[in-house]
């Protein structure tokens, strides 16, 4: 079993297809939707974590392609250099996925890598330069 993260870009006429349902039923994949921006008759964007066997993931990706949907694998990830962080919270102002949040008890920064969409907004928003992108 492995997990990959990818973003899907739907052309306007594909938004009504139950793609994630097909991925679950046909390829036995676990889908975790991280971000969805889909409007009827307009282009849509979906960011997913997909977990399954190597073979099922490969088949699932081919199926996505066959449906005329473009996808992009996330090869990069965000690294939080916690030791240098002062926990000011400036990065939480721009994080669209909720991956970066303040702990409401001790007001330290928390980073949930699973939720991160690698949009890189935090990299620039951090005044101490402690968020960086790695491959």
């Amino acid at each position, binding site marked *: 079993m492995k997990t990959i993260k990818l973003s899907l870009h739907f052309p306007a006429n594909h938004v009504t297809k139950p793609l994630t349902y097909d991925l679950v039923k046909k390829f036995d994949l676990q889908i975790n939707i991280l971000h969805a921006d889909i409007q009827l008759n307009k282009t849509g964007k979906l960011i997913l974590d997909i977990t399954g066997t190597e073979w099922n993931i490969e088949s699932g990706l081919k199926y996505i392609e066959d449906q005329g949907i473009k996808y992009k694998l996330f090869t990069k990830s965000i690294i939080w250099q916690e030791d240098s962080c*002062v*926990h*000011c*919270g*400036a990065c*939480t*102002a*721009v994080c669209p996925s909720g991956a970066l949040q*303040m702990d*409401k008890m*001790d*007001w*330290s920064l928390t980073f949930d890598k699973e939720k991160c969409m690698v949009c890189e*907004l935090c990299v*620039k*928003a951090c*005044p*101490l*330069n402690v968020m960086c992108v790695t491959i």
Partner: protein
Amino acid sequence: MESRDTGAYPLILYRGRDGWMGYKSFDEINEKIKGGKAVVVTAEEIIGIVEEKGVKQAAKEVDVVTTATFGPMCSSGAFINFGHSDPPIRMGKVWLNDVPAYAGVAAVDAYIGATEPSETRGLEYGGAHVIEDLIAGKDIKLYAESYGTDCYPRKEISTCINKNNVNQAYMFNPRNAYQNYAAATNSSDKILYTYMGTLLPQCGNVTYSTAGELSPLLNDPEYRTIGIGTRVFIGGTQGYVAWQGTQHNPGQARGENGVPLAAAGTLALIGDLKQMDTRFIRAAVYEKYGVSLFVGVGIPIPILDEEMLMKTTIKNSEIFTKIFDYSVQSRTRPVLRSVSYEELRSGSIELNGKTVPTAPLSSLKKAREIAELLKKQVGNGEFLISQPVESLPAANKVNPLDVREGS
């Protein structure tokens, strides 16, 4: 106020809301601190203590309440005296790691301002980084030019300095520890890069910068114990309030509790850079805005009487600020609404019928660390309180800068 001679200490009675109240003097509290007997709590802890014990009992028991803040404070910098070279130079222009420092003072004195950008690296490195590197003990490249004089013949010098081989290096910050500050949002359609962080379009977020109920001047809103000469924790060492800070605005509108409803008082602080610690001073860069400096400040407030105690029990729900629309490029930005720090701390607020996420810019975690450290230092006798030698102005207004014809 009325004074009666009672022997060892003159007993001063103070007229409070509920009649005459007992009064602990600065000296009495210091005697307790020196003996390691002072009861010290943080400005967050005092809230629960007073709720549990009541004002009268808590005022008797508690001697000092510690306050703190750790936020970006642009109006910061340091004076350095480099010592004289041989042959000597009257430094006219000075660069530290390629960051210009102001040298329009005596021969080998200069002021490095926190926000000054590097001439070779742009906004990624600035005066704040020079200050942080100095505190860390790193070598800094010094380059200076002069036109040469009979008494200072040298015209150029290139060498390295660090905090151990310069004479004085002291931070002198013209404006720190703002008593309350604006919250920011952006109603325009484009992303804004400001000193209040990255503001997302269409009021996509609200940022704020405060230690709230832990913040120094919010716990002494009328500057009764914090004034010129007050000993403070600054950047990890002991420093002092040197003067009112620039833009000090005690005349700001206030709530019934005396707490300003927007930016008000400020402090000019001074402290020995050589004794500072990079845990409490950090350089910052705000995207497309520039360089700033996180400064850790802590101030112990002596509980002179019940009235002073009451001031320190201020809660985030009782402190309000205004949300300004930073997309309006004017000195007078429109106010979208008034909001309490309790609401801002909750993580989201209502703005024009929409739920908008909120984010802090100053570190409450670090502020708490400072308040706890200060509590320990006052508790074990290392850090004494000090009576102000002069009060901060209680009334003055901030002048705008208008463009007009010269005479």
